[in-house]
Structures are given as structure tokens and as C-alpha cells.
């Protein structure tokens, strides 16, 4: 069944709006982080716990995955079924690697005794970065479902729409991450 163009329009628009609400959600977390970042309560500050090269690697992984997700969309539009699968798998692996590294970072910080219970700074750090990570995890599940579908059947108009929405979501997470990288990590490690 072909979806009429108006349908596509309203769904994309609705998804845009959803992304805006997510943007406000992140803005609230960023604002809280900005207020609380100096409140280390005798615990470590960002300078003490951040490993910039490690985070930079994460960043590269995520940015690359954003590129590959775009390629997947282009391939889907061109109806090159195999390529869609390839690029989507690449995106999935890069995203999973990013998430894995983030979890490594978290467990490392916690194992050094700097858990989120220690100070307001650490609470807001884990929450802000963790919320982004949770979004990435949702994105991975989403990709998994799409790959499952694409392997089973041809890409329908609905699937194309889903892929479009997914790339919007993924790019959005990329932008949020750039803010996290700059505000949380770079300012944190350098100040």
C-alpha cells in the first residue's frame, strides 16, 4: 500500500516536533549541569576524571555513524537494497561501539569511587551524558528492527519514511553530543 504524500508530511512534521521537545529536555539537563558543574562538594571536578582522547574517539565514532546513516538513507532512496543494509549495519556497529565506550567510561569513573552519589556535579554529569546514551540505545533497537525488516522484505514507502525519521533522530543525537563534548568534556577538562 502506498502512503499518500500528505501522510508523509504530517508524520515527518510530528517527528520534528518530537525532536524539539527532546531538545527542550536536553536543554533543561544542560542548564542544570551548568548550574551544578562547580558543585563538586569536595569530590573530583571534570578535570580530574575526563580523558579527552578517549572521548574524542567516541565523538569520531558517533560522527562517522551519522555519516553512514545518511548514506543508508541515500541508498534507500535510490532503492539499492544491499547498500541500505550495509550502511545501516555500519551505523549500528559504530553506535554500539560508541555506547560500549561510554559505558566503559562510566564504569571506570564509578570504580575509582566517583559515583553519582558523590556530588551534584557527578549527578548531573552522569544524568546528562547517560540520557544521551539512553537515546543511543533506543536508536540501536530501532535500527535493529529496521534491519530485521529490510532483510525480510523489500523497502516499502513506510519503511523509507521510518528510515528518514531515524536519520533525523540520529543526526539530532549527533548534535546533542557535540554540545556535550564541548560543554561537558572540553570546558570541563580545560577549565
Amino acid at each position: 500500500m502506498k502512503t499518500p504524500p500528505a501522510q508523509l508530511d504530517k508524520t515527518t512534521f510530528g517527528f520534528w516536533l518530537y525532536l524539539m521537545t527532546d531538545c527542550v529536555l536536553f536543554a533543561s539537563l544542560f542548564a542544570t549541569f551548568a548550574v551544578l558543574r562547580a558543585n563538586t562538594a569536595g569530590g573530583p571536578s571534570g578535570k580530574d576524571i575526563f580523558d579527552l582522547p578517549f572521548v574524542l574517539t567516541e565523538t569520531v565514532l558517533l560522527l562517522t555513524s551519522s555519516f553512514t546513516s545518511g548514506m543508508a538513507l541515500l541508498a534507500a532512496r535510490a532503492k539499492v537494497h544491499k547498500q541500505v543494509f550495509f550502511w545501516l549495519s555500519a551505523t549500528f556497529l559504530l553506535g554500539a561501539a560508541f555506547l560500549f565506550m561510554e559505558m566503559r567510561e562510566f564504569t571506570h569513573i564509578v570504580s575509582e569511587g566517583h559515583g553519582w552519589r558523590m556530588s551534584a556535579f557527578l549527578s548531573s554529569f552522569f544524568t546528562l551524558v547517560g540520557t544521551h546514551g539512553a537515546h543511543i540505545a533506543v536508536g540501536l533497537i530501532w535500527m535493529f528492527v529496521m534491519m530485521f525488516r529490510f532483510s525480510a522484505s523489500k523497502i516499502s514507502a513506510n519503511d523509507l519514511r521510518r528510515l528518514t525519521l531515524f536519520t533525523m533522530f540520529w543526526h539530532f543525537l549527533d548534535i546533542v553530543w557535540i554540545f556535550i563534548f564541548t560543554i561537558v568534556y572540553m570546558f570541563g577538562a580545560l577549565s
Partner: protein
Amino acid sequence: MLGKLTLDAFKHGPIVTVGQISMVLGALSVVGLLFYLKRWKWLWREWITTVDPKKIGVMYIVVALVMLLRSLSDAAMMRAQQAISVGSNHGFLSSDHFQQVFTAHGTMMIFFVAMGLMFGLINLIVPLQIGARDVAFPFLNATSFWLYAMGAVLLNLSLMVGEIGATGWLAYPPLSELAYSPGVGVDYWIWSIQIAGIGSLLSGVNFLVTILKLRRAGMTLMKMPMFVWSVLGSMVLVVVAFPILTATLAMLALDRSLGMHFFTANAGGNPMMYINLIWAWGHPEVYILILPAFGIFSEVVATFSKKRLFGYAYMVWAIIAIVFLSFVVWLHHFFTMGAGANVNAFFGIMTMVIAVPTGIKVFNWIFTMYRGRVQFTTPMLWFLSFVLTFTIGGVAGVLMAVPAIDFQVHNSLFLVAHFHNMIIGGVVFGYFAGLTYWFPKIFGFKLNERFGRYAFWCWSVGFLLAFIPLYILGMMGATRRLDHYDASLGWQGLFIVAGVGVMVILAGVGFQVLQLIVSIMQRDKNRDKTGDPWDGRTLEWSTASPVPVYNFATLDPVTERDVFWSQKQQKQAAKIQYEDIHIPRNTPIGFLIAVSALLFGFAVIWEIVWLNVVAVLCIIGLVMYRTLDDNTEYVLTAQEVKALETKGAKA
């Protein structure tokens, strides 16, 4: 296995037990009735799985009215306590219980009564007024409703199992943190409004898209009915403000459940941040509720004055101004926190500025009546009473917008009187007007006018009796939320008068219940056969009452504002060309997602880890199942539509 949940959670004092018994009896009688009438299948097929906004709207209103009754009984308990708990008498409620009662009252009234009535009316009317057949995302809409309903269930569950917070309806930290509120009450508060709030957020997105994308051909923005405009403003606010609430509640929940330090008094936490964030949502929330009420009044006044709405363009600009300004006034809720004079003065002035567009709307309504033919039906009476009471609240509001004055009345009963003045006089009267006005459209028969008038008089008089004394009490130094006070202060008499006022309001509610019963019994007498009982102006009146599942058989382009009115004036006979109509299939997935969310909330509150995991997996599974389902619509053929339409015309 059950986390923190032990048998102790079920132990309560006698007064709570009375509440529990009445709740259980209420639930049992509903269940019994369903068995007796053999309506379980009907309930499942027609209501629980429905994705029709008209039915969802009705369900919103039913839940909201049930919550209204519960929360009014809380109000009555509070006033009774304050009328007798003087000097050596400590009343019939302990301090802790009294504080739980007002927390529950405020939370329910805002999140479950006002929001429920609002989304109910929006669901029922917005698609009709824009001449559409459905909302943008019917399934999402059903999910939103069930999230709201399950939030209400969770809040009521706190009465049965555990407790509700004793912190006031916005649960300011550090009081709401574990250090000072170790029980599960605040957790119940957090999760019930978190679940309902996410539902509201999704509804906001849904209706924003519906209004912007699904309007009938020819209906430009400046041809939309004023109710639609005000809902548009309100939904913009929902979309921007509710994520802040979600984030704030989540952070408080993390503090409480994982020992974080966002808002704790120590370890670097900052309670003031919470107060800023919660009001960055909370103030827009006030306008989220009042804008649709303004929209209802615009429709009611124009219809019952038989005249076009005066100053349409200015009304639109007033809404837009209110939407923007409502984000730069939040600090007026806490001038007393001690921000500098410049900051306080800025927010004070902004608060006054927002009075200008609001005032414009009042004047425009008055001029809509001017040189009209005003019919004093109940919706119109609610409007008149709204103008008279809302103005008093407005004056109090302007007073409190001056920081130096606010220092003297903040957190006193003066403040309580002010916001009840705005919310009862504005929001509640508005929604009552809307319910009466659109009732025939929804159910096919009008409400009894006589009992409606009785209810109106009781509400209006009771309102004055209940809240004018509070203004005075506030000036006498009576702060809000007192479960006990000294006899020497001389407050008791006024509290008793206020209590009498609440009783008069309760009589009004009694008349409303009677009104509903009598109207149902006399429905044949008051049946609306034309679909246009009030000689209406907008598109919802151009289709049959009750509205068919597809809303409109044909979608003729809109040529002007009050399009239905001018069609009637020109006596156009529309050429009818029936077409196939796509209609979304019913699905239980939305309901099941919300039930999973309820379980999730319950599991977090009681720290039942396995249930948490199960609930999350259920939600993921259900969402996946839904997204993989391509078969979500069925087609009503042109033939079937024609058959339904002609049958309707005969009946």
C-alpha cells in the same frame, strides 16, 4: 520479591479507610454493573481499544469528573479541618494526613481534572472545528489518553497502598528529598504525574500537527475558529513546557531512587534550581489551561450573541503575545527567594504586561455582545460569571506582580484565593461552559437548563463565600497549608464562612449530577435532530449529533471564518459527492503500553526490580509490535457512507 512493599503499606487510619472503602465500593459497583449488563466486550471493543478522538474525549472527561469528585472531597476535608482545628482542638486530621490531603487536592485538580477536561474537549471539538476526519496520529492519541488515565490510577493507588507526598502540589526540595520525606508518598507523586505528563506531551505534539496539517482545504490560519487558535497556543506551550517538567521530575526521581544530588540540601545540590525549573513549566501550564477556556468563551459569546466575534485579529495576536510572555514570568512565583531588585522588577513588569492581552480579550468579548442578540443560556451565564470573578482575581494578580507587595501576601491565603479565582473562575467555568455548549454535539441531546442554572448559581455564590474570606485571611497573616492555628488570631469565623462556601459549591456539584441524570432521562425531549441546536457558526455544527465515526461525509472547502453561519445565511444546498473514507482500526496496544507504564511506576516506587525490567521489556515489545504493523486502517466505502448518512437523516 516485592521490594519495599510490605503489609504496612496497607495500614491506614480510619479516615483513609473510609476513603478506601468508598473507592472500592465505587469500583465494585462499576464492575458489577458491567457484569449485570454484560458489557465487558462492549467496553473492550468500543472504548478501551478505540482510537476515535470522539470516544477518547468522552473518556478523558469521565476520568476528569471522577477525579473532580475525589479532589472536591479533599477540599471539603481541608476546610472542615481548618474550621475546627483551633486552639486546643486539633481537628480530625493529623498534620501529616492534612498535608497529604492538600497535596493530593492540588495535584489532582491540575494534572487530572483541569488537564483531563481540557484534553477531553480538545479531542472532541478540534478535529470537528477544523473540518477534519481525525487527528494526525490516532494511535498516539489513544496512548496519550491511557497514559493520563494510568497516571490517575497510580495516584489513586497511593490511597490504597502507601501514601501520597505531604509536600504541597509542587513538592519543593529539600522537603521532597529523602532526607525529609523518606516515605513513598513523593515517589507516588512523581510517577503519577510523570506518566500523565508524558501523555500530555505526546498529545501536545499530536494536536499541534493536527491543527497545522489537517485543516479543511481553504481554512487558512486566520479563518480558524477562535477555540482552535487558543488550543494551538496552548499546544505550543505544552510542547515547549512539558519536557521541562519531564526532566525536572526525572531529576527529583534520580535523587530519591539512586541517591543523586540535584536538589538535595547538601553535597552541592541546588534546591533553587528545582524551583526555577518547575515554574518554568508551571507558569506556562497556567496558560495551557486557561487559553482553551478563553477559546470556549469566544465561541460561546459569539454563538449566543448571534454575532461575529469582535476583533478576531486582535484576539489572535493576544494569544500569540500570551504564549511568548508566559515564558518570561516564572520568577514571580518566588520573588521571596531573594533574587536582586532588578531581576524581581523585570519579572514583575513582565507579569503585568501579560495582563494587557488578557484584558483585551475580555473587552472583545463584551463588544461581541454589543449590538448582538444575547441569549442567557447556561454557557453564557458561566461566561458572565467568569468575567466578574476573573476580574477580581486579575486585580489580586496585578497586586502580587509588584514584588514589594508580593512579599506581604506570598504563600498566604491571599495567594490561594488568587489562583483559585483564576482557575475556578477562568478554567473551570470555561470548561463547564464548553461542556454544556458541546454536550448535544457529543451525545445528541441537550443538558437540562434549569438544573444547569441552579448549579451555576451555587458555584458562583459558593465561590465568593469560599474565597473572599481567604483574601482577608491572607492579609491577616494566615499562611496557606495550616492544619492548626491559635484561637487568639481570630481567623476561625472566616474559615467557617469559607467552609460554608465549599458546601454551597458542593451543592452546585450535586445539581450538576442531577442535571446529568435528568437530562439522560428526558433525552428524547431534548434531542438534537438537526446537529445544530444553538444556531452555531463553526463547522462542528454542520454534521450530525452525535457525530458519525468519520466526522464529515464530504469535505467541502472552507471559504471564510464562521463558514457554517454564512452557509446557513446563503441557504446553500451543498452537492453531495460521497467518497471512500480511511478509518484507523481499533487497537489495544496504546492501553497496554500505558498499563506497562503504570507497572513501571509502581515498581520504581516500591523498588521492585524484576517488575521494572518486565515493564520496560513490555513497552519496548509493544512499540515494536505496533511499528511493524502495517495494517492499521480499514476503508468505509462511499456506498456505506451514503447508507449511514441517509439513515441518520431519517432518524
